[in-house]
C-alpha cells in the first residue's frame, strides 16, 4: 500500500485542517473588516459641483445649521437651501467669484444645482430628521463634525447597529434642545445619568426598537 499512499500523506489531514482554519480565519477577518458600512460608507467624499466649505460658513462665521437647512425641524428630511438663500450674502460677498457661477445661474434660472447626496439610507429606511432634532439628538451624532469639514464626507457608518446603539440607550446621546445645533457641545460630567434620563422621561422619548419604527 505504501506505493499508493507515500509517507507524507500521513500528515495530510492535519495539514489540510490547519490550512483551512488559517485561510478561513483570514477570510473571516477580511469580510468582518470590509463588508460593513464602517468601510463601505465612511469616508465617502464626492466632488460637489460647488466647493461649499461648511467650515467657513458654520464654524468661522458661526451660521446656525438652520440658516440654510431651514426645514429640518418640521420635515422628515433636511432640506438643501435654494440658491436664493446663498444669494442673500453672495449677491455682495464674492459676487463675481467663478466658484459661485453655478449658484448665480441657479438663482437666475431656477434650475437646482446637482449636489451629490452623501448620506443615503436605504429606501426602506424612514429616518425622520424632525423628531430627532426636536428631542435633543444633535446633527453631530449622525453627520460628524460637519462644521469643521472643508468638504463634507460620510463620517459615521449609519448602519442599523449604529441606530440601535442609541435607540437602546437614548439617555446616553440626548442633549438639551438648545444645544442640538451646537456641534461643539460637550456634556458635563454625569450628564447622561442625571439629565439625560430625565429628558427621556419628561419628553416621553420613545426610541422604539420596533422594526416598523424605521422599516415600512
Amino acid at each position, binding site marked *: 500500500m505504501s506505493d499508493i499512499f507515500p509517507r507524507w500523506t500521513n500528515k495530510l489531514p492535519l495539514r489540510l485542517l490547519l490550512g483551512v482554519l488559517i485561510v478561513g480565519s483570514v477570510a473571516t477577518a477580511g469580510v468582518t473588516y470590509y463588508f460593513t458600512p464602517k468601510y463601505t460608507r465612511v469616508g465617502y467624499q464626492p466632488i460637489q459641483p460647488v466647493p461649499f466649505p461648511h467650515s467657513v460658513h458654520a464654524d468661522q462665521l458661526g451660521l446656525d445649521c438652520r440658516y440654510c437647512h431651514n426645514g429640518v425641524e418640521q420635515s422628515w428630511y433636511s432640506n438643501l437651501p435654494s440658491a436664493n438663500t446663498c444669494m442673500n450674502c453672495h449677491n455682495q460677498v464674492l459676487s463675481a467669484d467663478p466658484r459661485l457661477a453655478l449658484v448665480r445661474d441657479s438663482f437666475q434660472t431656477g434650475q437646482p444645482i446637482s449636489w451629490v447626496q452623501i448620506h443615503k439610507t*436605504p429606501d426602506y429606511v424612514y429616518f425622520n430628521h424632525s423628531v430627532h432634532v426636536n428631542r435633543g439628538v444633535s446633527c453631530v451624532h449622525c453627520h460628524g463634525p460637519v462644521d469643521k469639514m472643508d468638504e463634507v464626507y460620510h463620517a459615521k457608518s449609519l448602519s442599523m447597529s449604529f441606530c440601535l446603539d442609541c435607540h437602546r440607550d437614548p439617555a446616553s446621546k440626548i442633549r438639551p434642545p438648545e444645544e442640538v445645533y451646537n456641534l461643539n457641545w460637550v456634556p458635563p460630567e454625569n450628564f447622561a445619568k442625571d439629565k439625560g434620563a430625565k429628558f427621556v422621561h419628561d419628553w416621553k422619548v420613545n426610541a422604539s426598537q420596533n422594526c416598523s419604527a424605521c422599516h415600512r
Partner: protein
Amino acid sequence: MRYWLSFFLVIIVGAIAVIGIAGFQGGKSRKPPIEIFPDMDRQPKIRPQTGSSFFSDGKASRVALLGTIARGSHYLDTPLVTGQLTGSTNFVDVMPLAITAKLLARGRERYQISCLPCHGALADGNGITKKYGMAVVANLHDKRIVTQTDGELFKTITHGKNLMGGYGANIAIEDRWAIIAHLRTLQLARLGILADVPLDRRAGLK
C-alpha cells in the same frame, strides 16, 4: 517546512495586496459606496430634492403651479399673511399675534438663526458678514426703521428690500412676526430710559 513558508508567504502577500488596494476603514474616497448586498436599497421611487427623468425639467420635487396653493399653507389675504389690512395696501400698525413670553423666546431664537449673521445680536448692523464684504447692512435702531409699522417690517422680512433678499421662503409666517416682536424688544432696550425700569430692578443696573 518549505511548503508552510510559501503557504504563509502567499497569505501575507495576499493580505497586503487586499489592504493595499482596499485601504483601511474611514479612508476618504471619491467613489460612491459599494452596496455589497443591494437588496431593495434603491427603489424606483421619487425622493425629495433628487432628480427624476420622469419630468422634463429633471426635478423630482415639483414647484407649485402659478395660482395654486400647497395644502396647509396660508392663502387668505389677511394681516397675518400679508402684513397689510385686508383689501388694502396699508400696513398694520401692530402685529396680529398676541405677544407672549413664548413668542418672544421663539423670536429671539429665530432672529439669531436668520438675522444675526448680518444685523448682529444687538440689531445694530454689525454682524459678522460685515468683515467679509457685506457693505450695506441696515442698523435696525435707525429712526426710519424704529418708526416703521410692524406690517412694513413684515413685508421687508418676507420680500426683502434693496440688497437684502426676501426670507419668506425660509422663515414661517408666525416666526416672522415673532422676530419682529424680538426686534421691538431690542429697539426698546436701546431707547429705554431709567424711568422705564421698575424701582426694585434699578439697583442691578450699572
